[in-house]
């Protein structure tokens, strides 16, 4: 893959003499990870630690008649064999609902199934043994008698009267429903020159992390304290949940999260097997480790994106979009996932559809129904790829119908760059976006006119290439509006503590977490810049609820925008405190001094006055020499939470250039571009890596990835050979471009960049394929992933 990108935009007003803002500096944790000294959960070994393996239901829906564990209990190395009923005495069940999703309902979920297994892969019994291999051996000796129950596996019929209800107590299979009707939709369609309807399908898929889910729980009975080493995105959220369901106080639970091998939203949920592992440690009073293997990951890591959307757009012959209408149906698992719920994704589809466009007429319905399949919940760019596919698919189909260029129709409808603040039809408040500037940038970057000319020339030779676009908006930097208002103990605030040590170096403790995305680099850059030291003088500590400020962690593209701002402010505050010490030592006014490159200098002349090492020596060891009553404060904490806007929306536009082999239905990706606006860019290399990685996951959705289930609820391709994650060879060069519209809600002005790539890529690929096949009068392809078979069928070849 060739890496090309824009030159970083000019440095912002935040630029200070030794600023790292806007620079591609190496990550501080790079050497640790590349030299194999990362500390992942698999690296954690504790005295008396045992390993748990879960026996999982082979049925999608079955009553557990009996469990015979005697033989397993006698197997070599076995410490305990524990059933759901036994573990229910240790840990209380949970219900994945939020009050701001009106009417959402779900059934209580236990750490291990008690009487009934509701999806293939649900844990039904635990074996704890000295090694994982012994635990797996003993699992084979457990005899469970099941009575198979009918499985609900088709969302289209889930609400029919004849379909069995998965949880009788809920009355039906409806988890959540939302309706929205804004403006005058019927009138707008009636006054349109063209109306296009299509049904979009986004395939159920999952985020395949390099490191599987993993946890080591260590109940210390002497301290009455639970320490959980956990590959999670949100340590404080998990601290709250472990405490709540073990009937402990939060002060009795410590969650430690060191290195995490990718998460993508997969590791921000409550997993029954992880909760069970923590409960087992309490029950057995010893450390217990659980590391999900690939096979169980595919049937337990949350799935996402399984939606069918009937959609409609109206346009005038001048290309003005008159109305959008969607009807979304999504089949989740048998439970709404705790605590973020499985209703958020559909809710986001309603919120985001039509998002880039100034169109006041919008009607939407979404229904979320239970299924006897693995659970679904939030995966990178929650709801965005679906909403963007629907919106951008409709826009390009409408453009084709009225014979308008796909970029031109966007120019005529995108919110004007000078028209902010603005509000979408669905009610999203937009502070400042740059759709038109991004589009113009992309137009030039891809040499659009040249590409069209090449496309035309090749079509005459029987080569079918397509150009597709996707404009998008992305939710980042969420305020309490996302979860807090719904009653979940998930903070939208984050904090940073910075400390000057006795040799003048800086340590940062932050509430956000490092998942491999480079959050620690961003935090170090912010503090090094606002305080005034070089990066090598900064050490970052994350992921320890005993020692880091209370924070939300990493999700919804919040680590840089929120965690970064807290770190920036903490660095600034510490600089003030240090300059107060310097002022006292130098008998100067602190406001006449500054810190540059680890040295206190005269602010105007830059003349060196005092090294930080000397300052720290005096402050820590000879405070007696400082003026009476003066106390040096060389450790400060600052918090930040977005208040002015519910979310800091970002925007952008992607383009795909590809070739369809019309004989085989194979798609060759030739090139991909993304121009995005994430506000202030702290580290252009990390932003571009986020965009590229996100695009690749979006390409996975469009062409490769799908969790295939049969009508009995059996997952058919739950392994790395049959579930196709996108691989390097098939990926095109991905070029990144940037527009910068900082948010005024923070001093840093940074918005999130983690999900833009994933949000736009699937729509972009879809539109490019349809563009390629348009001269062949193929049926538009709207059913992801676009396999060779589907393309051949659209071409009428099979």
């Amino acid at each position, binding site marked *: 893959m060739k890496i090309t990108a824009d030159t970083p935009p000019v440095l912002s007003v935040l630029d200070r003499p030794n600023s790292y803002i806007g620079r591609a500096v190496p990550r501080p944790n790079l050497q640790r990870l590349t030299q194999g000294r990362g500390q992942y959960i698999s690296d954690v070994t504790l005295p008396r630690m045992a390993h748990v393996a879960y026996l999982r239901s082979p049925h999608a829906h079955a009553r557990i008649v009996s469990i015979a564990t005697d033989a397993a209990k006698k197997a070599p190395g076995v410490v305990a064999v524990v059933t759901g009923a036994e573990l229910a005495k240790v840990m209380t069940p949970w219900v994945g609902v939020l009050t701001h999703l009106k009417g959402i309902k779900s059934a209580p979920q236990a750490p291990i199934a008690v009487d009934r297994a509701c999806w293939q892969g649900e844990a039904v019994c635990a074996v704890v043994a000295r090694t994982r291999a012994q635990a*797996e*051996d003993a699992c084979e000796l457990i005899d469970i008698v099941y009575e198979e129950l009918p499985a609900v596996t088709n969302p289209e019929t889930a609400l029919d009267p004849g379909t069995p209800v998965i949880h009788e107590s809920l009355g039906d299979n409806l988890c959540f429903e939302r309706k929205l009707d804004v403006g005058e939709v019927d009138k707008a369609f009636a006054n349109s020159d063209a109306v296009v309807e299509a049904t979009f399908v986004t395939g159920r898929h999952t985020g395949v992390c390099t490191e599987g889910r993993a946890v080591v729980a260590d109940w210390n009975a002497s301290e009455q304290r639970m320490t959980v080493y956990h590959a999670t995105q949100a340590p404080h959220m998990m601290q709250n949940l472990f405490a709540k369901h073990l009937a402990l106080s939060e002060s009795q639970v410590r969650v430690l999260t060191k290195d995490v091998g990718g998460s993508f939203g997969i590791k921000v949920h409550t997993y029954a097997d992880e909760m069970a592992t923590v409960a087992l440690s309490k029950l057995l009073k010893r450390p217990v480790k659980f590391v999900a293997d690939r096979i169980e990951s595919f049937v337990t890591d949350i799935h996402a994106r399984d939606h069918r959307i009937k959609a409609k757009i109206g346009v005038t012959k001048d290309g003005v979009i008159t109305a959008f209408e969607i009807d979304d149906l999504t089949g989740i698992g048998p439970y709404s996932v705790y605590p973020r719920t499985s209703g958020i994704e559909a809710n986001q589809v309603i919120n985001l559809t039509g998002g880039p466009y100034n169109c006041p007429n919008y009607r939407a319905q979404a229904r979320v129904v239970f299924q006897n399949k693995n659970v679904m919940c939030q995966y990178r760019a929650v709801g965005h790829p679906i909403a963007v596919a629907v919106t951008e698919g409709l826009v390009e189909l409408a453009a084709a119908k009225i014979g308008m260029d796909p970029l031109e129709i966007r120019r005529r409808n995108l919110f004007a760059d000078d028209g902010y603040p603005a509000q979408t039809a669905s009610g999203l408040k937009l502070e400042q976006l740059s759709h038109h500037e991004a589009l113009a940038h992309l137009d030039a970057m891809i040499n659009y006119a040249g590409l069209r000319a090449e496309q035309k020339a090749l079509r005459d030779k029987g080569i079918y290439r397509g150009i597709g676009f996707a404009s998008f908006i992305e939710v980042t930097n969420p305020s309490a509006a996302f979860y807090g208002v719904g009653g979940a103990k998930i903070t939208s605030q984050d904090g940073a503590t910075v400390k000057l040590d006795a040799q003048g170096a800086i340590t940062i403790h932050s509430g956000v977490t490092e998942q491999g995305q480079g959050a620690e680099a961003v935090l170090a850059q912010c503090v090094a810049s606002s305080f005034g030291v070089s990066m090598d003088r900064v050490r970052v500590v994350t992921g320890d609820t005993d020692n880091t400020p209370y924070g939300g962690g990493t999700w919804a593209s919040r680590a840089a925008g929120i965690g970064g701002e807290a770190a920036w402010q903490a660095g600034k505050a510490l600089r003030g405190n240090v300059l107060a010490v310097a002022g006292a030592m130098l008998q100067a006014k602190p406001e006449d001094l500054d810190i540059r490159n680890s040295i206190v200098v005269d602010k105007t002349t830059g003349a060196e006055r005092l090294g930080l090492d000397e300052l720290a020596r005096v402050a820590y060891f000879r405070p007696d020499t400082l003026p009476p009553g003066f106390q040096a404060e060389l450790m400060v904490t600052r918090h930040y939470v977005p208040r002015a806007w519910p979310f800091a929306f970002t925007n952008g536009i992607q383009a795909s250039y590809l070739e369809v082999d019309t004989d085989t239905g194979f798609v060759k990706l030739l090139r991909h571009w993304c121009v995005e606006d994430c506000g202030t860019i702290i580290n252009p290399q990390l932003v571009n890596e986020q965009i590229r990685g996100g695009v690749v996951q979006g390409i996975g959705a469009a062409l490769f990835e799908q969790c295939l289930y049969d009508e009995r609820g059996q997952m058919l391709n739950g392994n790395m050979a049959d579930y*196709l994650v996108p691989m390097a060879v098939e990926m095109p060069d991905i070029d990144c471009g940037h527009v910068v519209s900082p948010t005024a809600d923070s001093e840093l002005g940074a918005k999130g960049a983690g999900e833009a790539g994933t949000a736009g890529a699937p729509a972009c690929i879809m539109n490019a394929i349809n563009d390629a096949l348009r001269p062949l009068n193929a049926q538009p392809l709207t059913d992801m992933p676009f396999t060779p*078979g589907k393309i051949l069928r659209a071409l009428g*070849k099979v």
Partner: protein
Amino acid sequence: MKPAPFAYRKVRSLDEAVALLGETPDARLLAGGQSLMATLNMRLSAPSLLIDINGLSGLDGIAHKNGQGSGFVEIGALARHVQAERSATIAKLAPLIARAMPLVGHPAIRNRGTLGGSIAFADPAAELPACLLALDGEVDAQGPKGKRTIKAGDYFKGLYETALGPQEILTAIRLPAADSNTRIGFAELARRHGDYAIVGLAASARADGKGLKDVRLAYFGVGNTPLRAEKSEAALAHGDVDGAVAALDLDPHDDIQATGAVKKHLAGVLLRRVAAQLMEQRP
């Protein structure tokens, strides 16, 4: 993903391995392990004994041997894919193997996997069994009754089932060496490089004036074994590509990547592409 317990023996001779296979009927031979280890870890198989033949000497050669016509290329069963990939002998005298090799899995797999293991395992979607069939090669096997040679046409019996007896060990693969009249063709369609193909086709023929004779088309990924398309071979020998496609009598089953109908369509597309390769005149 931990294998069930098994015993392990590293053998010093083929005779020892053959004897152990006799003593322990569910024993499995461990060569490159690229298929076996995955099935063990997923507990899809649980042999009580693994017989490691990796230490046996003299089984990893690649050599040109004299014989009928231009002779043979003999490949020892323990030759790794990477050896074949880099072998000048293979490049010159077994160009079909050379063409297929970069498409067998990924470099890490080719570093460990053996040609003998691939042929012995006989995955119907794998490249090498189809190449063996297309080239009309043969394999050597050693068992309790001594050595024997099995022609490719007699070797593939069913899904992962071959003519090898329970105590027999494949020791070498022998392919006719290519000469100036040898024509080969190879194509496969996989959604990701290195995956098992949805459909693949390995082919060989001999130039006959401006036409072809002895056309052998061996499809993979379309049945329980690599499959010859004999009616199409005859049409192709007459230079009739359309006829060859029309004569394809494959009946592939649906699988996770494609329906039988898609596979059949793609088999026809591959036939046209491979026919063009076969008909290309060498300088």
